[in-house]
């Protein structure tokens, strides 16, 4: 979809944050110089057309006691699809990407406790006979949603 100036202003403004107040859309609409109903209908369209993937709270699973770990595997081409099925079948696998490198599969494990990460990575190793490299984050350098629409 084509975004007009108001859509772009909405995308840029709402990456920063959203008020926790009874009428939050009024506050944001006021910043943007539009009305709350106009803002809401634009947002519905942005989400419905896929220009935005989600609007709402972003949770930190680690702050809730859960754990995340980036993992990678090097999979021979003729086994790739079968291994992808095995890996994706695990509900703890949140995202999985094929990438153009010798380590050609990269996925994120998300579990409710840090101890589960190794258990699941080991189980995938046992099931596939292939090593699962683990790249837990040691330090995070601030992320923002910084797409300028």
């Amino acid at each position, binding site marked *: 979809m084509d975004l007009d100036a108001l859509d772009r202003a909405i995308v840029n403004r709402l990456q920063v944050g959203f008020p926790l107040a009874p009428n939050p859309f009024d506050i944001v609409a006021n910043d943007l110089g539009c009305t709350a109903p106009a803002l809401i209908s634009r947002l519905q369209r942005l*989400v419905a057309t896929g220009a935005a993937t989600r609007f709402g709270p972003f949770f930190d699973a680690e702050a809730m006691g859960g754990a995340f770990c*980036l993992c990678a595997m090097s999979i021979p081409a003729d086994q790739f699809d079968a291994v992808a099925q095995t890996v994706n079948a695990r509900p703890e696998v949140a995202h999985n990407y094929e990438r153009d490198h010798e380590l050609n599969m990269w996925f994120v494990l998300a579990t409710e406790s840090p101890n589960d990460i190794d258990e699941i990575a080991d189980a995938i190793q046992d099931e596939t006979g292939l090593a699962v490299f683990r790249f837990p984050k040691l330090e995070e350098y601030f992320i923002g*949603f910084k797409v300028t629409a």
Partner: protein
Amino acid sequence: MTMLDPIDRRIVAATGGGLPLVERPYAQIASELELTEDDVISRLSAMQTQGIIRRIALAPNHYRLGMTANGMTVWDVDDAHVSDLGKRVGALPFVTHCYRRPRALPQWPYNLFAMVHGSDRSEVEAKRLEIAQLLSEFCRANTVLYSTRILKKTGLRLSQKED
């Protein structure tokens, strides 16, 4: 998930798919959960203060906004300087995620990961060069991994159990 009480968990579950797009979204969540609007706002505020909620925001779809190339740039940076340099890389406007992670020698010498988005690969390459210049002599090697296929993508899942 030990830090959440049962009411927080219900609020997390009710908002995990997104906020309702209505004039009073917190009142709507409150009525679904048989809470008051004040309860929902104050609990969400408390979770935001604790860092359980990073922010309430819109997640743009990079692909739909024309940023169709994404490269995971990875860098082998001197351990003595990686924290300082990582902060500077993470602050670059085109870097959306930046982490220090362990190496996996000998296969994987890289300890700094920075996700770079661009409208095409040549733009990603130009940005990668900017990072290389910033890291200068403290970086021994780098490469970029492009995604060629999304194999799975799901949001945060919460188990249904209450604690």
